[in-house]
């Protein structure tokens, strides 16, 4: 019914802490089409994460409307939101948020536990997702045995597992060095291009933002800039030109 994957109208979010009211989002309207690759930027405290949480159905707006895939999120119950997160949204976090003492494969399988898919296909699907991020051979490694970049790739594989329409990544490269950051951006570009998954990411680094097609600038809970990227960078091509680092990390497939 709706061509836009995300439609936000006059969105406000206020946090109440005793007598203190923090007005984190102050009337935001926004549309993100299917298949977009969008970066959100802005100073610390400007409301980026708050918006991401609402888009990801982890939180509800104080006022205004939010439609995800045509569904009015404001009217949903706790468990209905959980179901939408499970089926339609994948999350990638700055700190990876993998379960310790659990293999990469099982970490990737995690969202499947809460969906009603065919259990016999779990392993197959998780391996496919790990292959998509170029980490199939590390499936039985635990997070502590993986580098930061590899851990983030496991996290991306996890976000992919239920074939979501949307991946949300709040500062996905915040804990990674620049080369690894480019690798991660390469994976996002590839997923966006090949699978048509919409990706919204938050970043503080203009370099990283230029791997996307659209940059939204935040300031004090308002959108101040919203413009397409004239010449998006291509992570894959840049990586190929970069001098090979002596590291056991596989190049992105």
């Amino acid at each position, binding site marked *: 019914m709706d061509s836009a994957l995300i439609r936000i109208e006059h969105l406000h979010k206020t946090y109440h802490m005793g007598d203190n009211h923090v007005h984190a989002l102050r009337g935001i309207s926004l549309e993100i089409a299917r298949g977009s690759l969008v970066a959100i930027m802005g100073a610390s405290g400007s409301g980026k994460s708050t918006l991401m949480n609402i888009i990801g159905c982890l939180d509800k707006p104080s006022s205004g409307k939010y439609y995800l895939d045509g569904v009015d999120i404001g009217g949903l119950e*706790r468990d209905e939101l*959980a*179901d939408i*997160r499970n089926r339609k949204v994948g999350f990638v976090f700055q700190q990876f948020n993998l379960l310790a003492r*659990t293999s990469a494969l099982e970490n990737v399988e*995690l969202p499947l536990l809460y969906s009603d898919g065919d259990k016999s296909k779990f392993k197959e699907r998780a391996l496919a997702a790990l292959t998509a991020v170029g980490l199939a051979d590390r499936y039985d490694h635990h997070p502590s045995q993986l580098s930061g970049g590899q851990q983030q790739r496991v996290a991306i594989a996890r976000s992919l597992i239920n074939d979501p329409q949307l991946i949300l990544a709040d500062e996905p490269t915040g804990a990674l060095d620049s080369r690894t950051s480019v690798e991660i951006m390469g994976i996002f570009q590839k997923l966006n291009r090949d699978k048509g998954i919409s990706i919204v990411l938050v970043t503080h680094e203009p370099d990283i933002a230029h791997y996307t097609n659209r940059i939204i600038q935040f300031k004090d809970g308002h959108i101040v800039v919203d413009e397409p990227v004239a010449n998006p960078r291509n992570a894959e091509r840049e990586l190929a030109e970069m001098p090979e680092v002596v590291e056991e990390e596989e190049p992105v497939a």
Partner: protein
Amino acid sequence: MNKVFQSMRIAFRALRVNKLRSALTMLGIIIGVGAVIAMVSVGSGATDRIHQQIASIGSNVIIIQPGSQNTGGVKSGNGNAQTLTEEDARAIQDECPSVMYSSPLQQNQQQVVYQSNNWGTRIYGVAPEYMTIRDIRIEEGQPFTAEDVKSTNKVALLGKTVVDNLFAGEDPIGKIIRIRKVPFTVIGTLVPKGQNSNGQDQDDMIIMPISTAKKKVMGGGRQNNWQQVGQIMVQARDGRNQNAMDEIESLLRQRHRLQATDDNDFQVRSLEEMAAAQEQATQIMGLLLASIASVSLIVGGIGIMNIMLVSVTERTKEIGLRQAVGAKTRDILSQFLVEAVTLALLGGCLGIAMGVLASLGISYFAGWNTLVSLPSILAAFFFSALVGVFFGYYPARKAAFLDPIEALRYE
């Protein structure tokens, strides 16, 4: 079902991470369940022993003994009052419709001699009915008859222990044994009954006609009254114990010519009633012990609740992540509930093992009869699961209703 299995696996993994902590938490349940199992086994062991005693005496048995009902010092001076006689025994059998059999009984410890062997045993002087009342059977030979009683025949029935000690492998039937120099013909041997639950040998006995026993073996003090007997044993008809007791009482009062104001000069007691009273007492005792023990089960439950609360706090971030990737309220709830129940059940199983060991130890070292029953094991299993659910619910609920964003941000 698959989900439960899944949760079980996650739970086991979570518990393995903190092995020592899980073990210490389970200790409360282990001790609680172990104590309950052991206490219940002591209680049902005591009850079981009472049942055995009834069975070894025979069913529907009523015992009549001479003497006043209040056995307190003053009233027991019934020296010249008429006490129980063989006639009483016969009258009870003939005149009380609810009585099936009745037999007088006079017993005494005596030395028995066969050739160069001698053995001290208990002599039971009885009527032929006694065999039926006590369910004593003849293994070889014949029982004695009413005719033997009438004629004061010197015949004897020997228990296995007596046979073993007097006749080394020899066939005792037809042999002559001597008791106080009086020769007796062995006319039969008794089917062994083994030890009773008090450890008393029930085969160490000789049974003979009451007339013979009194005149030939126990003569002496009671010369003046050949009719007196030590007690009368009665078997009532099935289900008519109380009727029989009432009939016996009024018959004996009449026979003993007691006035309405006089106290009974005899006591009528039903073994079943005595046993039932005793059984009730032990059951109450067992229940008391078990309820004290179950307090420690509750303490164990509180331990589980405590550790689950710690676990929920420690794993807040994990919970947030699970919620973010789609775990619903009931998914998180069941995950932690299953973990608590697993903890409690594991403790319960170890506790059952502990309790069984403890009850074996009690019966071995203290010599008490203990009985671990399947129902008590099942109840313990079920109850520890219940403890897990009860004390695990609050922490699990707390986990399930965490705010996903706050949980994710928790460090």
